[in-house]
């Protein structure tokens, strides 16, 4: 039977696929961080294999991303602007890339863990992961946001979580600075290569919280705050 005009009027809401995409990204980031924590604990076996597994997870997230992009025809009018949606998608994608880059970097050469740098590094990783978890919380509220028309109490609640992401990112910045100083303090014990890996690694990890904050701020622009 032909489909009635009213029935055809409603399109597929983009929010659920968006959340699905973030779930896949989360798998990738968690796997990458798990690898990093293992290295911190001194276990450097099978890194190449696990880095490949992380890449595979990133690829899975990419598939979801492409699927979302393909299913957004021009004729779809959404509760949020198409451009904003695509930006949210690409920021989510950047987080996945960051997760993959960390694992790949470690497969090139695992970072040389110095005794008194292990704990601060772990804290630093935790801090960045925290920012990411918080932005995941924000994205999980999208359903309720559309229910509440992007305003009112719900919007204030989301706004508060977004603020937490921003604070987490700021704290990560401070940790990064301190860690870099400590790394430089150990100048004599590190080869040029090791030093390069340290510097790269800190930057890649920082990317997790940086992109999380950007993503959160993107969502903030959807809210109707009073």
């Amino acid at each position: 039977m032909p489909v009635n005009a009213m029935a055809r009027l409603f399109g597929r809401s983009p929010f659920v696929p968006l959340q699905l995409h973030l779930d896949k990204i989360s798998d990738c980031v968690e796997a990458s961080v798990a690898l990093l924590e293992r290295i911190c604990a001194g276990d450097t076996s099978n890194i190449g294999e696990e880095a490949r597994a992380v890449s595979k997870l990133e690829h899975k997230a990419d598939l979801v991303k492409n699927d979302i992009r393909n299913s957004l025809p021009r004729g779809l009018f959404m509760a949020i602007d198409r451009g904003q949606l695509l930006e949210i998608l690409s920021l989510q994608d950047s987080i996945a890339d960051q997760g993959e880059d960390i694992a790949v970097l470690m497969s090139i050469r695992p970072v040389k863990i110095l005794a008194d740098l292990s704990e601060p590094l772990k804290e630093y990783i935790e801090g960045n992961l925290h920012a990411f978890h918080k932005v995941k919380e924000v994205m999980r509220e999208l359903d309720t946001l559309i229910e509440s028309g992007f305003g009112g109490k719900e919007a204030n609640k989301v706004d508060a979580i977004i603020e937490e992401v921003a604070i987490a990112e700021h704290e990560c910045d401070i940790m990064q600075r301190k860690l870099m100083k400590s790394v430089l303090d150990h100048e004599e014990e590190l080869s040029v290569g090791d030093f390069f890996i340290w510097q790269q690694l800190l930057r890649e990890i920082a990317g997790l919280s940086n992109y999380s904050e950007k993503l959160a701020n993107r969502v903030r622009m959807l809210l109707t705050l009073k």
Partner: protein
Amino acid sequence: MEYTTVLIVLALVFGFYMAWNIGANDVANAMGTSVGSGALTFKRAVILAAILEFAGAFFVGSSVSDTVRKGIVDPIIFAGDPQAFVLGMLSALLAAGVWLQIASYFGWPVSTTHSIVGAIVGFGVVYGGISAVEWGGVGKIAASWIISPLMSGTISFIIFQIVMNRVFYRADPVAAARKFTPYMVFIVLGIMTLVMVFKGLKNLHLDLSFPSALGVASIVGLLGAGVSILLLRRYKTDDSLEEQRQARELYTTRAMQRALKHLARARQAADSDEQSSIDAVMKETRALTDTSVKRANLGSSNSEFRQVERIFIFLQILTACFVAFAHGANDVANAIGPLSAAVQTIQDGVVAAKSVVPMWALALGGVGIVLGLATYGWRVMETVGKKITELTPSRGFCAEFGAATTIVIASKLALPISTTHTLVGAVLGVGLARGIGAINLTTVRDIAISWVITIPAGAILAIIFYKTLDFFF
């Protein structure tokens, strides 16, 4: 005698066929949204639609019927040739009915109103030339087709903003929804009563002047609002259920965490082979724990909005009935206007310039619509209901309110408009206010295209049928 009997039977059959078509294709749109949002069960929707379609057709259907039979082609032109007028109206009915069936077979979103107007214009032009058509009246109708979706969209947009500000943005949305409901019940019932009794059916003494009609409407509205307050008081928002659920989730979470602790102990005691399999179990358990934590933490605001939507279910049932009523009032004319014009001309032997739509004709149209709904329309309603899950009760309420108000105003102004297009306009209005996840604008384009095609298609079919009928009689 025999010859006129044949014509009368033909008129009844064609008019009934047209009414059946309307019931089969259009009614689903009015009630389908409520089925989709879970406000009404499918069976109840069909029964309610039948009652209200009939009421709308019977009580408010006459003014649009008048326009359809007298406002498009001037009956005076046919004064010397009543048979041509009868055959013309018959062919218009048949043309519109056939075109609707073709269109619904292919799934084109065409309007019953557009088909019948196109068909009448078609036979008018063929019989009396371009000047036989009252272009002023047709222009007014065409303008109303553009204005009606715009107007319904605007009303829905505004009402949705009001709902957002008065209910969803409040600190306690559930309490706000409870306060908001009686006012809306008052407005909806008030408008419905007003259109019924203000200049309504004379035979039933329902032709009150505006002030007294307004008085009656306010009383009915107030009564309805009072009943809604009583119903809301009896309706408990089940906080206790929500608390129970959360307590259960919390218990699950704790039990899972305990299981994890024991698994960790087992892992310490186990050899390496066992360890890896325990690791796998632990991984799964951890994932399970995570989900139960997630569910236990699901913010209370989530369930709050769910409760608000549950209150809006009542309001949406009311507006769905309002749409069905409005639809009956406006669309029944598409079948009844030409039918009653033809039958009266046959009976009297002359084309009457002034005549009222007989009540039996309105009743016949109502029955035709209900039968169309019962035999075929329910299937359409089922698919519409299944597809429209995006429309929550609060959004459905706003869209239906905008559409129904527009349709009854048009009915009172004797303008035949398209119910479906008005409803689509209303949904777009809510969508523009960011109320709906995603709307396919391609469908809107399809509607605009079939809008343009339907009028000439109806006209051409009417001309063909007219020539054929003319050949036989």
